[in-house]
């Protein structure tokens, strides 16, 4: 039987394939394993090259670092808990009940995930400023008489938790939805027939069987919140590990504390994923009768439906308010002491083109993202083909290797590049272009490989074999059959890569050190730090970023929405 599990091992594996794989592995070695390895070695070596743990004990003795570590843990834990508090009930409602607008809400709920939290941080400053929209609105309603200093340093932690939560809750939501969708409704029905109440059914069945999905999603949220650099940086909450690492980049050569902090981050990431795996294995049960899981939607009463709709609207308003505020600010000509701007126009968008740094940012990001995406397309398809068709004896190793960037946070990789390649011909201080392209492409490579693999695994092997039997070579078969039939997946993957690269934060902030190399996000950051009109320009530039993202994602949904066959029909 022709299945993807069958090797096509006819004739010898061409030398070219080994050469190409060797190049891919070398590429990943130099720009993924080596930078992390060098940090690890430096963190465990003293000036004489002897093994030491002194840097870790120095962290322990330094109150500022201890505070940063404790804060990062607190941030990650609080974010995970609040994401769970939102996502679990939401997933439960959306998987079990039908109510008006459910489809639209389900799509909109994913918007905060793709909208950059970095831009949201700019928006939240506008909303919660002392004389910002929130205070003015509360005063107008009569709830407060004196302005509250929301953005006071004491409140910044809560603000960052809020921003991380609205950005990350969709990840948990998606995981829990998937877990609940896999629970056969007949399991609940069986309990119901035996007399179990809704609460008991939830406690004994849904909660138990959905736990693996919760653990998987929670570990991702925890790690993202722990390692996010952009949000705390722009909010001004600096006492955390990610910002400390960012601050230590410039003094990486002279101050070994950065290495130790990066290793700590890696240890947290690894522990988090291992724990999640362990909990997943402990709590997942093999489904006995895995047949067709039919979805049964319950009809809710009118009042309940109303509550569901309202809950969705409130959640979406909260989640999208910061981004909306950025958008409004970008059009505001006059916005002072009023809830909404009193004058609007396109001045900020016009000013962007007169501000060299914003033009540089847009140009650089476009160029870098296009090149990185092209690299990802070629590498991603190549690796996916080797892996799905098991062309090499070490195909699985290659698969594991390209997935590693998912577990290595952006700040770690960027820090590693600075450490590894400073004072070499790739020194990011002189010109970070090459390293930026490499960092962008490596960090998005797993997504591209997954996208191409999905297409290739769905493609029956016999479609390629039919071509071989008719006399076509492997390369011609790839060109004529495999590529056109997986093109929709590759294109969708490429658009994702492009969009997320355009709005990459950690690599861009750390690696681009001189104005003329600034990508879009670093340009937004630089403008934001400028006094006066800088903030509004940052909002306009952020809105352009969101527009690019929105266009890209619409394109993906259009492409993926069409069935593969229809896409190629005249």
């Amino acid at each position: 039987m022709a299945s993807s599990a069958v090797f096509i091992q006819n004739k010898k594996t061409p030398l070219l394939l080994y050469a190409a794989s060797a190049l891919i592995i070398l590429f990943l070695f130099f720009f993924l394993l080596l930078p992390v390895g060098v940090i690890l070695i430096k963190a465990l070596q003293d000036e004489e090259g002897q093994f030491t743990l002194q840097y870790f004990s120095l962290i322990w003795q330094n109150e500022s670092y201890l505070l940063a570590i404790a804060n990062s843990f607190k941030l990650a834990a609080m974010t995970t808990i609040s994401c769970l508090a939102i996502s679990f009930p939401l997933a439960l409602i959306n998987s079990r009940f039908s109510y008006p607008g459910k489809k639209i809400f389900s799509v909109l709920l994913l918007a905060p995930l793709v909208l950059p939290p970095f831009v949201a941080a700019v928006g939240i400053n506008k909303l919660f400023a002392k004389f910002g929209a929130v205070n003015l609105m509360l005063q107008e309603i009569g709830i407060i008489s004196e302005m509250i200093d929301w953005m006071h340093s004491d409140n910044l932690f809560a603000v960052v938790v809020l921003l991380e939560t609205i950005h990350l809750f969709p990840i948990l939501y998606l995981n829990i939805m998937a877990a609940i969708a896999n629970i056969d409704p007949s399991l609940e029905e069986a309990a119901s027939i035996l007399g179990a109440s809704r609460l008991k059914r939830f406690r004994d069945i849904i909660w138990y069987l959905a736990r693996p999905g919760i653990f998987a999603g929670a570990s991702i949220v925890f790690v993202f919140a722990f390692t996010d650099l952009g949000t705390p940086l722009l909010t001004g909450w600096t006492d955390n590990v990610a910002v400390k690492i960012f601050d230590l980049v410039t003094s990486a050569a002279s101050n070994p504390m950065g290495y130790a902090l990066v290793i700590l981050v890696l240890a947290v990431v690894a522990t988090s994923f291992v724990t999640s795996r362990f909990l997943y294995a402990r709590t997942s049960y093999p489904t006995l009768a895995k047949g067709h899981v039919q979805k049964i939607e319950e009809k809710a009463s009118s009042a309940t439906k109303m509550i569901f709709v309202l809950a969705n609207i409130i959640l979406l308003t909260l989640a999208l308010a910061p981004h909306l505020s950025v958008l409004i600010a970008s059009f505001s000509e006059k916005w002072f002491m009023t809830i909404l701007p009193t004058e609007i126009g396109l001045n900020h968008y016009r000013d962007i083109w007169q501000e060299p740094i914003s033009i540089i940012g847009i140009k650089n990001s476009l160029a870098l993202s296009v090149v990185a995406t092209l690299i990802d397309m070629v590498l991603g398809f190549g690796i996916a083909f080797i892996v799905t068709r098991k062309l090499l004896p070490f195909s699985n190793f290659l698969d594991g290797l390209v997935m590693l960037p998912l577990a290595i946070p952006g700040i770690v990789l960027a820090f590693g590049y600075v450490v590894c390649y400073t004072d070499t011909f790739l020194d990011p201080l002189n010109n970070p272009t090459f390293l930026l392209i490499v960092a962008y492409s490596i960090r998005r490579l797993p997504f591209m490989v997954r996208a191409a693999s999905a297409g290739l695994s769905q493609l029956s092997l016999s479609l390629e074999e039919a071509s071989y039997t008719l006399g076509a070579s492997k390369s011609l078969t790839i060109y004529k059959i495999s590529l056109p039939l997986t093109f929709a997946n590759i294109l969708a993957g490429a658009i994702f890569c492009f969009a997320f690269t355009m709005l990459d934060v950690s690599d861009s902030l750390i690696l681009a050190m001189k104005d003329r190399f600034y990508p879009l996000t670093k340009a937004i950051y630089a403008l934001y730090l400028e006094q006066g009109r800088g903030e509004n320009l940052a909002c306009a530039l952020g809105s352009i970023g969101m527009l690019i993202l929105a266009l890209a994602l619409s394109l993906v949904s259009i492409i993926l929405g069409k069935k593969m066959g229809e896409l190629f029909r005249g």
Partner: protein
Amino acid sequence: MQIDFENVSKHYGSFQAISNFSLHIKSASLHFLLGPSGCGKTTLIRLLAGLEDASSGRLLFGGQDATAIPPAARGVGMVFQNYALWPHMSCQENIEYGLNLRKISREEKNQKVSEVLKLTHLEECRRKYPGQLSGGQQQRVALARALAIEPKILLLDEPLSNLDAKLRSEMREYLLEIHAKTQITTIYVTHDQREALSMGTEVSVLNRGQLLQTGTPKELYHEPTSLFLAKFIGETNLIDGFIDKTASDGMIVKTTLGNINTPRNETLAKIGQPVTLSIRPEAIAVSLKEKNSDELNILPAQITNTVFFGDMEQLTAKIGKEGQLKVHRCYTGASEMPLGAAITCFLPKAQIRVFAQEGAT
């Protein structure tokens, strides 16, 4: 073109898919490879196409060693079980694909495409895409694509398994017609014994990667060489026992049904040898009259179940305390055999096959 497998083996890691397989397939024949799922028949066809390499042994096409020839150079046409039609190409583009790879003139190409379209009755589907065709049409496009390159060997991998019963029977006749016209050596893989018995001139039966028997459908049905074959092809009654007496012209086997006189099996003719007897349900004669006879192979019985199939009737006949036989008889309505009726079963000696019991040495 004649095909020879010479001691071909194929393993995937520790799994032995084909072991020591040898077979000669005559030129221009329509040869069936029949066996249950996982018996290795698809592996054999993939070895012929060059999609798999043999772990050992040789494959000869027309007497020439073809083991190392890559698939592209074998000149083999193949119809895949799922047809493997390229959804992004029209029927014509699918069919032309192989011709485009052979440097031939445009006129010649067009002529060949028209010929196969006519042969497969697909002229009207020329510009359609696979997704716009019915199952039967898709099957014919796959066949047309394989035939267009004028292959020396045509491989059909369960080509009818995705069609409904009616279409399947139409396509059987159609495939026979195409084979008669083209006279291409054709290897047809199937797990459907009806398909193999009704269409094949020669059938090879496989199990667990080994060739069990090659022969005409009638030989396989009436002269199975193993217990597996007797069970796999058609229905049969299996009766366990051991040899009680042997003579030059037969043997007496002691069974739960009583002593049964069977033809002599040279390799098993040993007193005390555990054996299994096989007799087809339609080979057993029944009559309503109860006959108390000491004659061998005449057994008094009682009908415990009847199943009506239209053209025939299946009776379950209880013999003694534990024995039971299935009997098929042509149903004409002339003599009814009601439930509970006492009957006599006659087991013709010549129709009984004797095999070693499974697990017995």
